């Protein structure tokens, strides 16, 4: 399946999605509200992007982007989806019901960035302790005790 085919099939139901082919893989840029629809689309036929190999988040100071790296175990093709998340009220739909690996990865992003995943069955801190305050991977996070400024 070529990038052109994917672009055509995605821009049908999601006309506002933009594409970026400058990187190694095709990147689809969308808004947070469209993510669940796109995820369901990509998981099912004819794409079969059944393997979510990386889920992370980037803090751009004005907004967050959650980054999803997907690949298909039958087509052996990878794509990247970047969803723009509002920084003041960071929330996006969970995909842990589609890819089970998202369960842990979303908890990690929630823990370190404070992005809330709507409908996640068990959204608690994963790595840090439950009484920890703040989200350390945000760019404005300050810890006077443990942080070493270089």
């Amino acid at each position: 399946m070529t990038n052109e085919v994917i672009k055509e099939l995605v821009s049908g139901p999601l006309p506002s999605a933009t594409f970026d082919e400058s990187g190694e893989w095709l990147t689809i840029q969308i808004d947070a509200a469209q993510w669940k629809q796109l995820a369901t689309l990509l998981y099912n036929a004819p794409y079969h992007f059944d393997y979510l190999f990386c889920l992370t988040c980037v803090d751009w100071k004005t907004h967050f982007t959650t980054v999803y790296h997907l690949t298909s175990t039958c087509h052996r093709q990878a794509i990247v989806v970047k969803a723009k998340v509002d920084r003041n009220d960071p929330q996006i739909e969970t995909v842990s019901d589609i890819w089970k690996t998202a369960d842990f990865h979303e908890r990690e992003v929630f823990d370190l960035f404070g992005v809330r995943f709507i409908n996640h069955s068990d959204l608690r801190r994963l790595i840090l302790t439950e009484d920890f305050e703040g989200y350390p991977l945000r760019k404005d996070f300050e810890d006077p005790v443990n942080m070493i400024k270089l």
Partner: protein
Amino acid sequence: MYTETQIVNNSDDELVVNVGPQHPATHGVLHLVITLQGETIKKVEPHLGYIHRSIEKMCESLTYRQFIYATSRMDYLSAHINNHACALTVEKGLQIEVPQRAQYIRVIMDELTRIASHELWWGAMAMDLGAFTPFFYAFREREMITEIMEETCGARLTMNYMVPGGVMTDLHPDFQKKVKAFIQLFRSKIDEYDELVTGNIIFQNRMKGVGYLSKEDAISYGCTGAVARASGVSCDIRKLYPYDVYDKVAFDEILETEGDSFARYMIRMREMKESIKMIEQLIDNIPEGDYQAKTKAVLKLPKGDFYTRVETARGELGVYIVSEGATTPYRIKFRSPGFSNLSALDQMARGGKLGDLMATMGTLDLVIPDIDR
């Protein structure tokens, strides 16, 4: 953490058992909260983060030459391969052509690391089941590899040998001789391992049919490495997306279809033999030339994001760098294999017996600093 009231006042005759954080069979500080009904496991809930050092945050203030050293402390048994992944990502960003000699050295070192890592796993795995002797057997041969590493890189565990553009120093003059001596010895020893453990009927009874993971679940949970390959998922990055000289060596991707603990065990045992095959093809053919490409003193990655996938001893390691054109990365993410493999433990252990949990966990080959980062 469960309180005493929650443990005692549990309905349905359920009992909550804490394993860890300090427990010999978790090989590190991992805390599992297990809900039991009689001897049967109802739920396994991992609690992580006891050795979280926030390596990703640290890397944001380290330059592209420095951050590689922090990654040796993630999966310390695959330190070489972690460094390799980072070096490849920086090279991808800067479009550096790595000299052939460096590529050969890197792959040989990677495979030696893989054997050393699998040997430690094999010894520890048998120890989890109550057999002590294999641990000493495994360490006897592993010592030869760590000695080769010490001589060549100056360190036994956190080698920091890979740098953007190649390797840090040239090979030790005795390197080829010592590696060949190791291969010759190891070939006979691996048969000894099979005689001692693999063929043992008690061992097989503990492993076969235990901790089953289906192919669909392995993909859905994002399992990689031996865990996924034991369920029949073809996912060897060295084969699918070859890097450096992996496309020049002949080797087989080991696959099993049973999906149980024994299949995961057999994958790693057979993988060691494949690694030996690879080293044998490369060791006599290391080309002459530079061991490092000429690079600038200060590295600046262009604006954009770069992702590299490599196969460590535990599975797929992903390094994701987001660059804003500065001397330090804007954001770095390490997609560690152990993190995803651990998330499938609940699925594997559910419905099994408490006594089998450690055997199942042993076959996942968890390294806790790799999960916590």
